[in-house]
């Protein structure tokens, strides 16, 4: 795992993403690829059709340009190898290509801004299509300690296994790895099998198993993460299909909306 892809867009989560991506690139001694996404905004106005849109676009463009220039300036002093790709207007094929060639994609957890372009969703779609892990960083996060504690939310599903497999290079950096299992909501492979898999990669892990007592799973995971002062959480994304999650809610969805910690997601 050497190729880290960062989505650059002037939103509230940019600083968090940037710091997390830098920390990860440094920890893996890898290479950082920044993709500058500029999504044109259409503002509905009355008589002067398009005039407001045009000025909004110019304003947004200027903001993005400033952010881009500032980030490039900072990158020059951070001492990691990097390159920069400008992509305008939605998702041109270039981003899809670059996303395919990344080992991990850094994105933000969804913030509550109604009219922001939905960057987290775009990234998740990209990553799920290509079978890669996504590092989703909360807006308030400033850097991640990769040599700290990792919590793996284990439920025995193929998605959890995929997340485990994808995050091995990161887990190898961690000082403590814990497999957390809610024992009445588990099926498939056991946490012992997961621990054995990790041990073949030279990663020592502990297993914590609790009974749900009808509490929501996401709450239990976050509670445990807080209790052991975890630095990040590894979790399989979308065990159910996504339409179902949208209607009935799901662990992935509630984790993405409530987690104060960075998540490593894979499908």
């Amino acid at each position, binding site marked *: 795992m*050497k190729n880290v892809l960062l989505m650059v867009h002037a939103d509230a989560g940019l600083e968090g993403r940037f710091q997390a991506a830098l920390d990860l690139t440094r920890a893996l001694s890898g*290479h950082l690829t920044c993709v500058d996404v500029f999504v044109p905004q259409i503002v509905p106005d009355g008589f002067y059709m398009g005039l407001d849109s045009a000025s909004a676009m110019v304003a947004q463009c200027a903001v993005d340009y400033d952010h881009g220039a500032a980030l490039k300036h900072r990158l020059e002093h951070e001492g990691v190898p990097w390159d920069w790709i400008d992509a305008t207007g939605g998702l041109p094929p270039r981003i899809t*290509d*670059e996303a*395919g060639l990344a080992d991990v994609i850094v994105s933000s957890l969804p913030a509550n801004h109604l009219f922001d372009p939905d960057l987290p969703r775009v990234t998740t779609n990209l990553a799920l299509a290509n*079978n890669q892990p996504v590092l989703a960083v909360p807006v308030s996060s400033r850097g991640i300690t990769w040599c700290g504690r990792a919590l793996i939310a284990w439920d025995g599903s*193929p998605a959890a296994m995929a997340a485990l497999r994808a995050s091995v290079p990161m887990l190898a950096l961690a000082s403590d790895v814990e497999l957390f299992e809610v024992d009445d909501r588990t099926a498939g492979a056991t946490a012992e*099998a997961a621990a054995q898999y990790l041990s*073949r*990669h030279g990663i020592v892990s502990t297993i914590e198993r609790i009974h749900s007592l009808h509490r929501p799973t996401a709450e239990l995971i976050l509670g445990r993460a807080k209790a052991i002062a975890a630095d990040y959480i590894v979790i399989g994304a979308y065990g159910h299909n996504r339409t179902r999650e949208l209607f009935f809610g799901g662990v992935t969805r509630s984790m993405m909306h409530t987690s104060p910690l960075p998540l490593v997601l894979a499908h």
Partner: protein
Amino acid sequence: MKDILLLVHDDAGQPARLQVAISLARLLDAAVSCIAADETADYRDDCASLADEILADVVRHQSQANHKMIDRLFAKQRIDHRWIAMEGPLIDRLCEQAAFHDLLIINARSTGYGWGDSSIVVSDLVRATNQPLLLVPEAEVTDDLAAHAVIAWDGSRACIAAMRAAVPLLSKTRRVTMVEFGPHRGGPPIERGAEYLRRQGIAVHTTHDDSLHHPAGWLVSRCRPGRTSYCVMGAFGHSRSREAVFGGVTMTMLEEVRIPLFIAH
């Protein structure tokens, strides 16, 4: 890549599968999980006659002897291995188990049990698991997997996925060549792929061929034993119906190639 899943069945392709599994396990310091089909199920239906029972007994003894032989072989080579009990349809169980392993080793073509139309089985597996597969020819294969790898580049998503999945193996390989055939058909250029591998610390040599041969035939000729030890490629870039009508590079490679193929979808 530390967990290898190996299909065990006493057929013509087994020596090649075992050999590849052993050299891979040595190379990557990996453990091998052996999965074997329960063949006696065929003879154990409600209206089983005496002949069926005798046959079931013979089959059971044969597979037990095979298991013992494999146990001895792995013990002699000092490779960590375990058995996975399996009941029910072979393909379903293989897909299920493949999700919990890094790589599945099966034959590209086999005339053995349950492999009537092997390309259908292989394509089912490739499409169903999302996991990389190593498809081994039936014939004798090279002992030295780490000599020379060829990556067949076409810029497709499947090809990139295969390359990403093969990184642990490629980093142990002494010489890696990326080849592209014909005009570029979308996707990232070959140089971008080579750059990806260089960042992982893998030195790559790229070549491009514009000649007018058929792509599949050209690739088969590049992938000869002795010249190349294994080939990494994306599988089934087109839809299955299109592939069935027009044929495809994947199908031809499965049928004709004499070296292991590292495949992802």
